[in-house]
């Protein structure tokens, strides 16, 4: 009994709250007669979504593909570099400052430059990569260093090589940290891709989601804009 009740509240309650919020939004827009270019009602957004699905789905695919490519590259680069850092302290000392400089530089500042240097789609990919890279690197590095020091001693006691220590101790210990970094990095890759697409503006030929947002914004087609931001 309590199990099914628990499951009910687990799914039904959030759903009800979500629908309630949408209904409230709809009511506010209708009662106060807010024009759609200021705040479109959810019903209008849904209608636009259905109407423009053919162009929107294409753009969505473009952006998602770039996001996943960037995330994949960030996983290889971030986790790989973290392992390198864990194995050789001099590598960490030499390269970590670069990673930090990249992290603290706002992506909107780099994006226009990259757009000059690179083709727009590649530039978007690099931007998404740059923002996803750091959380994966730093989380994995933290995880690799988190191995129990007594276990490290045990490995030393049995004269285990650094490689064996990595395989049997540091990598498994780092896994939860890595997954945490992956979650953050995944969200950031999408944001990075969209920010770069916006920076690319009309120059963006890739026609990703943000391109549609910018384009719709020019035409004051707010329902399309807000649909993309959701």
């Amino acid at each position, binding site marked *: 009994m309590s199990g099914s009740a628990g499951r009910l509240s687990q799914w039904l309650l959030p759903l009800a709250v979500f629908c309630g919020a949408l209904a409230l939004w709809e009511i506010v827009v209708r009662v106060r007669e807010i024009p759609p270019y200021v705040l479109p009602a959810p019903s209008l957004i849904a209608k636009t979504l259905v109407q423009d699905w053919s162009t929107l789905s294409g753009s969505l695919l473009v952006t998602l593909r770039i996001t996943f490519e960037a995330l994949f590259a960030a996983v290889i680069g971030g986790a790989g570099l973290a392992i390198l850092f864990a194995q050789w302290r001099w590598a960490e000392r030499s390269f970590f400052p670069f990673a930090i400089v990249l992290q603290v530089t706002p992506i909107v500042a780099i994006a226009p430059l990259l757009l000059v240097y690179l083709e727009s789609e590649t530039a978007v990919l690099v931007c998404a990569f740059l923002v996803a890279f750091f959380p994966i690197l730093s989380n994995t590095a933290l995880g690799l260093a988190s191995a*129990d020091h*007594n276990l490290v001693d*045990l*490995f030393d*006691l049995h004269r285990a090589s650094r490689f064996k220590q990595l395989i*049997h*101790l540091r990598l*498994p210990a780092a896994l939860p940290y890595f997954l945490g970094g992956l979650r953050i990095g995944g969200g950031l890759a999408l944001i990075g891709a969209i920010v770069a697409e916006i920076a690319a503006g009309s120059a963006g030929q890739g026609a990703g989601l943000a391109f549609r947002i910018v384009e719709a914004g020019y035409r004051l087609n707010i329902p399309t804009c807000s649909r993309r931001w959701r």
Partner: protein
Amino acid sequence: MPGPIVALKRAGKTFGNGVSALEALDLDVREGEFLTLLGPSGCGKSTALRMIAGLSQPTSGALQWRAGTRPDVGFVFQEPTLLPWASVWSNVYLPLRLTGVSKAQAGPSVDKAIDLVGLTGFERAFPRELSGGMKMRASIARALTMRPPLLLLDEPFAALDEITRMKLNDDLLALKAELGTTIVFVTHSVFESVYLSTRIAIFAARPGRIAETLDIEAPPVRGEAFRLSPAYADYCRRASHALHAAMGRAA
């Protein structure tokens, strides 16, 4: 009588931060004995044990191994320190795995070690599924897989409840009687040291050194009878007295 397995000759340890943990420590570990290092916390017991294990190098003095080099040693930490993602069996297999022994070859040794600590039937359990006492048993089994001639334990039962600790004390004595392993055991409990040891080295602090040693004449496998005997009480009194004298001198 052959010489000691290992002799610490005026071994000293000063850490990088200037803390002098040990000074001119002279200590023999004799074949077959159960030697306990007893002292207040911070007096350098762990440092001495880690030196014997080769996990820490003396900054002065030296260690002399009877065999010329350090043989395999088993080490049990204060916490069970098991790999949380590995089963009991895999944890006990770890030392052999690290030395390159295949699973099939290691099988009998691993099973035997698990049997020795009474964990048969729990091979596939994960550490999180075990009680504190069982985790410590798994940790001891891991230290025994290589059948080391020397077993080092650093306050292994300090975090366990009294009843579990008594049981593990008895089981450790039974293990020692069966395997004949030489044991060096660190504790800050006078009662535990008297109950387990054949010899107690009482440490004085700041800097760490041995203030006194005390031989315990009692049968190798002890029990309630020994714990309730006048001899036990007398040894406890003497050890406690020596400990307080050592601490008083340090203060």
